[in-house]
Structures are given as C-alpha cells and as structure tokens.
C-alpha cells in the first residue's frame, strides 16, 4: 500500500500521446498469455487457434495503430508524462513506420517459423511487439533516461529474436554477436548520457540544452560517446561490423524488421540529440563526426556490398550505405526532417520487401539465398522475382520507384541548403550501389526455364502462404505508389 501511495500520477498525463505505448504493451502481454495456455511439450489437440488469434489480433491492432498515427495531428508538439515524452511530427511518423515494420514482420514471420518447425509463434509476435514498444519509446523520448530505457527494451527483444532458432548455429552466432556488441554499445551510450548529465545537471533534453553546460570537455566527450552508441544502432561505418553477421544469421523476417525499425528509432533519437545539442562546441563536434561518417558509410557500405555472395549480407551492407544517406538529414538539420522521413519510408518498403523476397526464395529453394542461386528465378517464380526486382530497383534509386523520389528529395533539399558535397558522395554511392542491386535484378531475368534447377526441391508445406505474399505485395505496391504519386504522403509528412 505504501508503494502505491508513493506512485504519483504525472500531472501532464496525456492519454492520446500514450496510446501507442499502452497498446503495444498490452498486445505484448496478451500474445504472451495466449501462448502460455499450452503446456510445453504437449501437442495441442485439434486445431491450434492460438496462433491465428495472436496474428489476427496483432494485425488488426497494428493497422489500428497505423490509422491512429495517420489521423492524429502532430503539428502542435507537446510534452507529456512528466515531460518525459514528446509528441510531435517526428514521433508520429517514426511510430507509424515502426508499426508498419511490425505489421510486415508478423505477417511474414509465421511462415518462417513453420519452416523451422518452430511452434512459438505467439512468443515471436510478443517479442516483435516488445521491440516495437521500445522503439516507439525511444523515438518519442524527451529525456535521455527514457531514450535509454527504450533502447534496452528493444535491444533485449531483438537479441531473443535473433537467436529464435536455437537449433541453427548461424542463428545462435547471430544472437550472441548482437548481444555482446550491442550491450557494449549500450554501455557506451549510457556512459555518454551520464557524462552529459554531469555536465548539464539534467537528463531532460530541453533543460540540457538550456543549462549552458554543453561547452565543456565533459559534454564533448559525452556527446561523442552518445553518438557512438546511436551510430552503432544505425550501423554506420565504423560501427557496422556486426550488421552483416547478425543479419545473415538471424531469421530473415527478423532481419527485415530490425534492419529498418532500429534505424527509424535510432535516427529519431539522433535527430533529437542534434536538435537539442546543436549549439556549442559539442554540436560542432557532432556535426564533424556525422559528416565524415556519413560519407564513409555511403562509400564503404556500397563497396563492401559489391563483393558479397550471400543476398542477406549484401542487403546488410546496403543498409550501412543507406544509413549514410540518412545521416545527411541530421547533419544539415534545417528543413530536412520531411525528406529524411520520406526517404526512410521508401527505404522501409524497398528494404523489407527485398528481405521478405529473400525469405520466400529461401523457402522455395530450402537453403540460403545467394546471388548465384537466384539466376533465372523469373522463369521459375515470376511473382517473387518481379517483386524482388521492384524492391531492388527502388533501393537502387531508379524511377519510377519510391527510392528515386526519396533520393531526389533528400539530395535536392541538401543542395537547397547549400551543401553540395554530401549529395555528390550520395550519387557516387548510388552509382556503386546500382551495380549490385541491378546486377542482382538483371540476373533474376537471365537464363531460360529449360535449365534444371540445382538444389533440393522444397517441401510442399514449406511454400510461402498468403500472409507472406500479402506482406511482400504491400511492400511492392507501396514502393510503386510512393514512387508514382508521392504527393499526398509528402504533403502529410
């Protein structure tokens, strides 16, 4: 009772702003409970309704959440929950993108679990919801404490998701690697937050920037450490080493989800750090670090992707490069939020679509998807190949796909802000990128149907079901729609 009495209800409690967090939390608990109903090791009798129930509930709720984000007007930014959280356009669009990632993951995930004879579908969904909850918190954090809380919440869920197939050594390796490296990065981030607190006497971003303590050496070191922690999540060079290994080993649906959703959350946090720490020497340092790392990421990521044989590794390095393009936005900052979010949306659709296509390819040829093994896929699986090609072309940034509009807007706005160097490197990077994206897309169409397919025939029950087809179709349609009629989404942003 004493404990309860000590609980204070925040005076600025705003339920509307809290809805996504509450909903995702409840969803996580409910899907876990539905899973717990079965005794372990005992086959459920009759048809198992738990999984469709979790899936249906999750999908409907997430669609509701997406609609909520679309409907809610974030034009007037406000702080709430003891001023720990902020609700503005950035929170809103980030939350929307994270919800879309989660929706695509739970649509496509069950197929992959099925293929690995894994029956813990409810757990999978619960972990996805938990990760999304953390990401939404991180994206809406107005305090370094909440930011860190969100980061840990989604990181822990992602460790578990990476290691979700403990029978596979690749998955174990992936989870372990991610756990070790990411917790080190979290520690660095936390240390940075602590130093910033020491310098400014506050964990609240607004107060930190007002305190005037951002000029000292403590703040400079702290800012550097915070950037390291956030750039790790963004997989920017030189913090990108984990990405290919983790992405390759993790279940493909999880890779699809985490490759984009973590970037959304980390980028939102980075944006806020730049927003509040922008002035003073710490801000200048941040600018310099981000500037050089953005260019390095664009070049290194694209170059390393060129020589990859495994498609997931290739896409991992492509993610490094895309992280570099995204960094252009916080570097220039002024007027860059909308281009950043639009590019993020186009990257989300293209990248998740590509990973989901890889997942389907894995299912169809029962083995890892390599660049050599997808040659002539168009003649065997025209639909999957066409979707994969559309997503790759979008990632390459060619019209009429979303990726083109994203790059056009991002680079164009950067030029408008008077910065020509970053777009030039961005275009050089895109040129290198086009080689492997389009090289893969071209090889999908080559060869002929006569050629025998080398590899194991897939088991019939492993063939992708309608939900994963739906997820892939959503990505492809989205890529085309955002590419051809970007106007309405752009004006909403």
């Amino acid at each position, binding site marked *: 009772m004493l404990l309860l009495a000590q609980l204070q209800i925040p005076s600025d409690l705003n339920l509307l702003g809290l809805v996504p967090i509450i909903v995702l939390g409840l969803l996580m608990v409910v899907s876990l409970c539905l899973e717990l109903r079965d005794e372990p090791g005992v086959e459920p009798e009759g048809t198992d309704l738990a999984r469709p129930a979790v899936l249906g509930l999750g999908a409907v709720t997430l669609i509701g959440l997406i609609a909520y984000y679309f409907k809610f007007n974030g034009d007037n930014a406000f702080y709430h929950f003891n001023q720990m959280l902020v609700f503005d356009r950035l929170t809103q669009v980030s939350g929307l993108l994270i919800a879309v990632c989660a929706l695509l993951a739970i649509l496509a995930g069950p197929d992959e679990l099925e293929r690995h004879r894994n029956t813990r579908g409810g757990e999978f969904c619960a972990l996805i919801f938990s990760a999304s909850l953390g990401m939404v918190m991180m994206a809406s954090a107005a305090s370094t404490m909440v930011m860190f809380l969100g980061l840990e919440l989604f990181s822990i869920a992602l460790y578990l998701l990476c290691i979700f197939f403990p029978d596979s050594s690749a998955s174990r390796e992936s989870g372990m690697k991610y756990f070790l490296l990411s917790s080190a990065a979290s520690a660095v981030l936390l240390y940075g937050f602590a130093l910033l607190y020491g310098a400014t006497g506050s964990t609240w971003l607004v107060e930190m920037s007002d305190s005037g303590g951002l000029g000292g050496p403590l703040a400079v070191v702290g800012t550097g450490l915070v950037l390291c922690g956030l750039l790790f999540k963004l997989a920017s060079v030189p913090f990108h080493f984990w990405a290919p290994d983790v992405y390759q080993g993790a279940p493909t649906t999880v890779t699809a989800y985490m490759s984009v959703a973590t970037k959304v959350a980390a980028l939102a946090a980075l944006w806020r750090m730049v927003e509040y720490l922008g002035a003073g020497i710490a801000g200048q340092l941040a600018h310099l670090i981000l500037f050089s790392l953005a260019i390095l990421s664009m070049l290194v990521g694209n170059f390393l992707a060129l020589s990859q044989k495994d498609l997931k590794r290739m896409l991992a390095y492509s993610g490094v490069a895309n992280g570099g393009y995204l960094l252009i936005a916080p570097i220039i900052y002024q007027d860059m939020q909308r281009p950043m979010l639009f590019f993020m949306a186009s990257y989300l659709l293209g990248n998740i679509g590509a990973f989901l296509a890889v997942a389907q390819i894995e299912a169809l040829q029962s083995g890892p998807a390599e660049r050599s093994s997808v*040659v002539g896929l168009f003649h065997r699986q025209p639909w999957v190949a066409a979707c994969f090609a559309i997503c790759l072309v979008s990632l390459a940034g060619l019209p*009429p796909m979303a990726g083109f509009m994203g*790059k056009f807007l991002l680079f164009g706005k950067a030029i408008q802000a008077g910065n020509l160097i970053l777009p*030039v490197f961005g275009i050089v990077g895109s040129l290198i990128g086009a*080689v492997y994206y389009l090289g893969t897309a071209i090889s999908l*169409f*080559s060869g002929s149907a006569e050629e025998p397919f080398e590899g194991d025939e897939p088991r019939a029950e492993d063939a992708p079901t309608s939900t994963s087809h739906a997820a892939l179709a959503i990505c492809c349609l989205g890529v085309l729609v955002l590419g051809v009629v970007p106007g309405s989404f752009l004006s909403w942003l």
Partner: protein
Amino acid sequence: MMVSLLVGLPVVCGLAAYLMKEVGSRGFALLVMAIQMGIAVSLMEGAEAARRVHQVWIPELGLNWSLALDGANVLLVLLTPLLCFLAVLAAPRELENPAGLAGGILLLNGFLSGLFLAQNLGLFYLFFEAMLLPTLMLVSAYARKEGPETALKFLMFTLVGSLPMLLGVLILAYSPDVAAPNLDFESLQGKVPVHRQIYLFFPFLLAFLVKMPMVPFHGWLPSLYRNSPACVTVIIAGLMSKAGTYGLMKVGLLVFPGALNQLGPSLGILAVITIIYGALSALGSDSLREILAYSSLSHLGMIAFGLTSSTANGIAGATLQMAAHAVATGGLFLVVALLERRHMPDRMRRFGGLAEFMPRLAALALFLTLASLGQPGLGSFPGELMILTGTWPAQTLLTVLATLGIVLAAAYLLRWYQRVFTGPIGTYREPQDLDSLETFVLLVPITVTLLIGFCPALFLTPIQTWLEGVL
C-alpha cells in the same frame, strides 16, 4: 489528356501484358501500339490545345506532368510505336516467354514516348532513367548470349552518364537562389546565367554522349548490339539512341543555349571523330550486327555534328535526320531480325548468295541499305545535306572530313550487302523467303524513308517552325 494516353496506355498495358499467358500477348501488344499510333495521328490533326497537358504533380520537387506534341518531337513520337510495332512482328516465332517480350517492348515504348514528349526536365530525367529497366530486362532475358554481362555493361555506362545528370537536375531545381523549384522547360528557358551554363551543362552532356553514343563513350555499343535479340536492337538503335541526340537538342537549346554555342566547335570535332571512327570500325568488322552498330555510330556522329553547329539549317537537318536514321537503321536491324528468325549466323564470312534463296528480302534490304547510306530520293539524303550545308560556312574543314564519312558509308554498307546477298553461297541451310507479313514489316520503313526522301518539306516545316521559336 489525350497526350498522356500516348505514355500511359503502353505503360499500363505493358504491365498487363506481363500478366498474360503465352497466348495473345503479342497480338495484344500490337493492338495497343496500333491504338497508340492512331491517337498520335489524331492529335496531329486535332486542336492545338489537345496536344499538350500540364498537370502539377509534385510541386515541392518542381516536377510537373507536362507533355506536349510539338515540332521537335512529332516525328519521333510517331515513329516510336511504329518501330516497336514492327519489332514485335519481327520477333522470333518460338519464344519461351513471349509475354515478357511483348510487355517489355510496350513499357520501353511508353517510356520512350514519355521522354520525347516531356516538357519538364525532371520528367525528362525520370523517363530517361526509367527506360533502362525494360531494356535491361529484355537484353538479360532474351539475349542471344551473355545476356546478364551485356546488360550490366550497358547499365554501367549509362548510369555513369546519367547519375551526374541527376545532380545537374537537382542543382537546377534547388540551387539556393531559386525560390520555388520549377523544372518546366518553359520556366528554365533563359533563366540560367551563361557563366553557370558551362559547368551545369557538363553532366547533361555526359549523359547524352553516353546514350548516343559518341566516341569515346561507345564501349557498350558493340557488345549490346551483337548480343541483344535483333528485334530489341531495332528499338535500341532506332529509338533509344535518339534519346541522346534529342536530349542534346532539347535540353541544350532550351536550357543551355550559351553553353551549346561555346562548346559547339569542340563537340563538332568529337562528332567528326565519331563519324570517321565508326566508319573505319565498320569497314574492319566481320560481324553482321557489328557493322550495322558501327554504321549507326557513324551516322549518329553526323546528327550530333549538325546539332552542335548552332545554325538553323544544321539543327533542322539533324532533327530530320534523327527520324530518317531511326527508320533506316531500324529497318536494317529488322532485316537482321528476320535473318535471326531463320537461325542465320552472325559472321559475314559464312554468308553469301542469299539473294538466290531470298530474292524478296534481298530487294527490300537493298532499299534500306541505300536509304542508310544517303541515296538521293531516300530518307537520309535531305537531312545529311542540310547538316553539311549548315556546318560548311563556319567549319569547312570539319565538314569536308564529315563528308568522308558518307563516302565510307557507301563502302561498308555496300560491302555488307554484297557479302550477305551476293557472291558464292555461304554455309547455311536453304532459308525460306519472306512471307507476306514479313514483307510488310520491311515495306513500312521503306515507305517512310521514301516519304522523307521525296517530300522532306512536309516533315521539315514543323521542325523549322519550332526552331524559329527557340533560336
């Protein structure tokens, strides 16, 4: 609105054609392109207002859906569906996936029409890049050999040219002194100060020179022309190469007239080098397709020579020559496509005496060969003559050298014809002569080239009217 159909119809139907099964996709594509031609012709006859459409698309990017049929593009817009129509007719009979071919050609046709019609630089760039996709697909899937390698090489060359162009477009739209980005040609016309034109023009120039191509950017040309299926090469040689020359004319004259004037002489030298280089390479080659590829290169050099002359005669002649070259080179590749249907070899030394078995093809091919080498009375003659009269006063020496290209063209094209159709009989099984449909395929370009040859004024008037408004 009708103008949009010229782009929208083939693109939408192209996507639909992919979904079709084997049966009917070819007929469907032919029907769509026939309708498209009908629309184009009716637009030419129709009211002025129907020939243009202007719709704000993404104001923030300065991108407008702005298309218009004008004197500069009318010939190319008419020829695009026509050549694609013939290409589908001349495609190999037994194909694994005819729907893919029909869909790809329809898409390419739509994007090319969009490129020629675009009145907005952003839209122009969009189509310039978009047409790569169906081309890569067609080359990769239907190549005679080495499909993916050829496609990738082509892709690399084109992107090295065109991605800097994206930078140029962005700088034009977003330079800090521009209040509201607007990429319409109309609003860009005369807006770029001369001192900025030079360095802004370079990325555009690079893209166009690679696309044409001009020496030394022609690395992709021989392998692409040699390895692609001939029915696709018809479109690449006949129309896609015109994306480069047309872009040079449109963007150069409208947005960067000062830069085009200043760079004209040096570009003229490059063009003449291309003319001679192409001609000599064609003389030295033994491949049926390569000779035509280099011949096309040489003739495109002539077009570029006219475009960079900064004279009304030179530019008008070059514009007319674009259409004439599309028909003549496209026609010659149609001949190759028909030979490909009969599984004929590519090496010339294995040919000979084909006229004995295929008198019809021999007669029609002779016509197209003569049209290509500039025989008076046929398509290429008026255009080349106008180019040379235009360049003569200012660049006499270069003009003399360019004329050498015409002489050489007679040599290599007649050698091509002679080796294939006359002389001792080569090593192949006795081929069937053309059936009536195939005869029709070749008669169409012959008719057009005769029309251009005998009544050039008919085609020149709209071009000259347009030029008067621009120069």
